[in-house]
């Protein structure tokens, strides 16, 4: 065994090892694992298609999203109007594409804000425990006690309507949820000996959180975020419905669906298409989120 | 007649990418009242063998590929699942390593013992409860504690409860999978002592799975050493401990720091056990063996008798190259 090792030592100097390791940097590993996951790729494709549709909306349709035409009300899908028209005679396909810009962007921004702020609070509470944990947890309890939509309504009412304000209003309600998840995860990770090992090697608290704890909280955070994107899309719809979200005539998936609900018995396209888009988006994000979670965990390599 | 006779048992796990050869052509015999120690390291296939006897291999991915398991002359692999269920817990019972997870936390220990009795013996609930108290007393727990829940017991006491459940229907064969590994030494001594006593009293045969040669020396009548899914050495306790022959067995003895002698350095076996999904051709141990030769690489090794009742799976030993 000894002779064998000596031989290996000569062959493997640092450069040789690094060459070997080129294929093995963390992110390439993640990518390789992700590519093996078929449903993850499906989710990725769905999300990318959605984004492309939204980005290239002006090229994909020759209508304006707010061009009303009274005689063309409630038209069923045809080659001219692939999704039909709505109660004001506007092209539904066009409104779906432009509406996606608002729904998608607000939902992603809101989720991102709540994930970042939630991570900061949650990891502080979970890692330090004691008084820090008590204060943050009680604060989160209070936030959890207020229904998310109600909180968003209150914030929107103060800030006024508009996409950015809506995103902000929706993110506040999500903070408590993601903070709680992170807190629970951090507390579980903290019991692992490698945290104590990091302390024993002389690492300071901030370094331990950054290097050893946060990377291990990514999985639950991603799962929670992909779920909350769907929730946010519905939240925007709710806000818009009571006039606090996006102002008409700006289209938005949730509000199209809401209006369509009034005609659900007589005219299906106005409910089916927005519902289908919302569903597909949420579905795509969930598949993507699950696959990312698996890809980010080196233990699940095979 | 032998109580249990295993002939050529082979168990594979078919994974997505490969097949794990967990147990390969294992043959064992247990006589009535005898204790057989099955010794080996993690991944040697000890637990899979035990689960195979109980027909508790999860299928898929696991599969009993071939072999016979004759229990009182009946091949357990040929009977129906209903018949097998009536044997499990009644004629053959099993103790697992971890007493913490083997008990249901929301039932009292008395209820858990009575449940097994009620299931297998046609008796009333009350009788079963009565018997469960007797069982507790037998394993050294005050019968008044029958109404307590598992969390109220210490680790050693829980393992006694588990043993009481296993022995409740006076099985003919007890399979104990590392029954004392999770316990402290002084508690282990108590439990082993108790198991020996009960075994003699009830005339139960036992298959004791362990990695600890010390426990074997104190408990067993016969020993089988398992490596990479195969029995590599098999014999009576005395023959095997007085005259260990297989290089792996010798390596195991050399790895244990001795209490009765002073040694400066241990003589461990080099390397690691081969991956059970890619076992080498020929002798499975040759890559770690100091005595391996070209023949070992080519030939599949068979168990050969080197003295009456002592077999070794090593051609070098059988060929007289390795002696002492």
């Amino acid at each position, binding site marked *: 065994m000894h002779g064998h090792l000596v031989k290996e030592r000569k062959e493997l100097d640092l450069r040789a090892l690094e060459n070997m390791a080129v294929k093995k940097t*963390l992110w390439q590993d993640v990518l390789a694992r992700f590519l093996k996951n078929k449903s993850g790729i499906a989710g990725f494709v769905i999300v990318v298609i959605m984004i492309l549709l939204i980005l290239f909306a002006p090229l994909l349709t020759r209508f304006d999203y707010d061009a009303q035409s009274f005689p063309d009300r409630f038209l069923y899908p045809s080659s001219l109007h692939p999704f039909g028209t709505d109660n004001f005679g506007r092209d539904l396909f066009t409104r779906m594409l432009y509406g996606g810009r608002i729904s998608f962007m607000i939902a992603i921004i809101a989720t991102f804000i709540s994930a970042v702020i939630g991570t900061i609070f949650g990891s502080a509470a979970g890692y330090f425990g004691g008084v820090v944990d008590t204060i943050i947890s009680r604060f989160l309890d209070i936030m959890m006690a207020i229904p998310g939509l109600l909180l968003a309504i209150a914030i929107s009412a103060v800030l006024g309507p508009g996409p950015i304000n809506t995103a902000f209003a929706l993110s506040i309600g999500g903070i408590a949820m993601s903070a709680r998840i992170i807190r629970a995860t951090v507390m579980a990770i903290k019991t692992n000996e*490698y945290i*104590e090992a990091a302390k*024993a090697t002389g690492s300071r608290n901030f370094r331990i959180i950054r290097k050893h704890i946060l990377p291990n909280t990514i999985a639950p955070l991603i799962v929670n975020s992909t779920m909350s994107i769907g929730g946010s899309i519905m939240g925007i719809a709710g806000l818009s419905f009571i006039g606090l979200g996006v102002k008409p005539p700006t289209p938005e998936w949730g509000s199209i669906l809401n209006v369509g609900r009034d005609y659900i018995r007589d005219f299906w396209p106005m409910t089916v298409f927005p519902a289908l888009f919302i569903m597909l988006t949420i579905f795509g994000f969930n598949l993507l989120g699950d696959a990312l979670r698996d890809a980010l965990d080196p233990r699940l390599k095979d | 007649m032998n109580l249990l006779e295993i002939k050529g048992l082979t168990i594979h796990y078919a994974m997505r990418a490969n097949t794990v050869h967990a147990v390969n052509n294992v043959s064992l015999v247990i006589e009535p009242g005898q204790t057989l120690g099955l010794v080996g390291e993690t991944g040697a296939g000890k637990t899979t063998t035990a689960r195979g006897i109980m027909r508790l291999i999860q299928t898929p991915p696991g599969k009993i590929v071939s072999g016979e398991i004759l229990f009182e002359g009946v091949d357990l692999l040929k009977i129906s699942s209903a018949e097998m269920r009536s044997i499990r817990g009644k004629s053959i019972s099993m103790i697992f390593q971890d007493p913490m997870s083997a008990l249901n936390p929301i039932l009292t220990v008395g209820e858990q013992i009575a449940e097994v009795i009620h299931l297998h013996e046609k008796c009333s609930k009350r009788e079963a409860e009565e018997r469960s108290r007797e069982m507790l007393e037998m394993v050294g727990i005050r019968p008044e504690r029958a109404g307590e829940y598992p969390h109220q017991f210490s680790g050693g006491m829980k393992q006694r409860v588990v043993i009481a459940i296993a022995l409740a229907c006076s099985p003919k064969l007890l399979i104990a999978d590392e029954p004392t590994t999770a316990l*402290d030494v002084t508690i282990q001594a*108590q439990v082993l002592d108790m198991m020996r006593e009960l075994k003699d009293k009830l005339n139960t045969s036992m298959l004791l799975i362990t990695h600890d040669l*010390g426990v074997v020396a104190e408990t067993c009548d016969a020993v089988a050493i398992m490596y990479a899914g195969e029995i590599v050495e098999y014999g009576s306790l005395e023959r095997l401990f007085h005259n260990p022959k297989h290089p792996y067995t010798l390596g195991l003895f050399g790895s244990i*720091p001795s209490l*009765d002698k002073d040694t400066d350095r241990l003589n*461990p076996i080099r390397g690691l056990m081969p991956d059970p999904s890619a076992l080498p051709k020929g002798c499975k141990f040759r890559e770690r063996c100091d005595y391996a030769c070209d023949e070992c690489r080519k030939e599949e090794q068979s168990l050969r008798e080197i003295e009456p009742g002592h077999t070794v799976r090593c051609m070098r030993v059988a060929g007289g190259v390795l002696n002492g």
Partner: protein
Amino acid sequence: MGEMLRVEHLKKYFNNPRGLLHAVDDVSFTINKGDTLGVVGESGCGKTTLGRVVIKLLEPTDGKIFFEGRDITNIGKKENIELRKEMQIIFQDPYSSLNPRLHVIDLIADPLKAFRLMGRKAQKERVLELMDMVGLSRRFAYSYPHELDGGRRQRVGVARALALSPKFIVCDEPVSSLDVSIQAQILNTLQDLQEQHQLTYIFVTHDLSVVKHISTDILVMYVGAMVEKCGAKELFKKPLHPYTKGLLAAIPVPNIDYKREKIVLQGELSSPINPKRECRFVNRCPYATDICRQEIPVYEEVLPNHYVSCHHVREINSL
């Protein structure tokens, strides 16, 4: 050789919902440079806590710790971090003590990075050197811990502990979760490293045969208290405390010709929470009398360099 670590009347209590848990209760000892002190006892005896307290990973409740003659009991946070360069620890569980998301090379480099000791390239070179030292093939540098078997993982843990070239290492059950053949390989490596680098060890374990093999002196603990301490060989030849005797008799020996006195200690460990002022072992001791229930026995030097805390040690052993 000079003194490396001296501990005087060390205590560590934890608040517990049911009262004060006396994890370590009045422990004193000295370890000389290059020696190994084996600390043995059953689960809950305080041996793991003791290992954490002497290197200041946990703050002691009371008592004094001297490292190379310097009092480190009440040093500040900064000094404590500096202390990591001198005192290190190897953990029991090579599965949970390694961050699953880091490559071996980053795991071993972690202490170097924490202290920003050298450039990135030098760090990596140092890691490879460490891997050679602990007998871990370089080809595993970019493996994840879950790709390694238990023995190799534990070598990663050893290399990480050695990265800062400490003088003193607490080995907390480093081989307990490994198979015997792998265990022997790691024990040999630890012994070689001790010789090459003049390391001083505290070796915490429940396995008496391992501790006999590796230690210079052995300290036996029972429910937080010291029971007996003497040279390793002496302890096995001439155990004086009734608990040590029972403990030695309980070890299964893989030798069917080895005859010895059969003692099976009855009962279980007493609770370390709010212990009474009595001998901790009184409930299981075959020699217990009234005085054992009334007074904590004094820890005294009964024979040269052989310390025992038992009221009846002289009668029992006819000394």
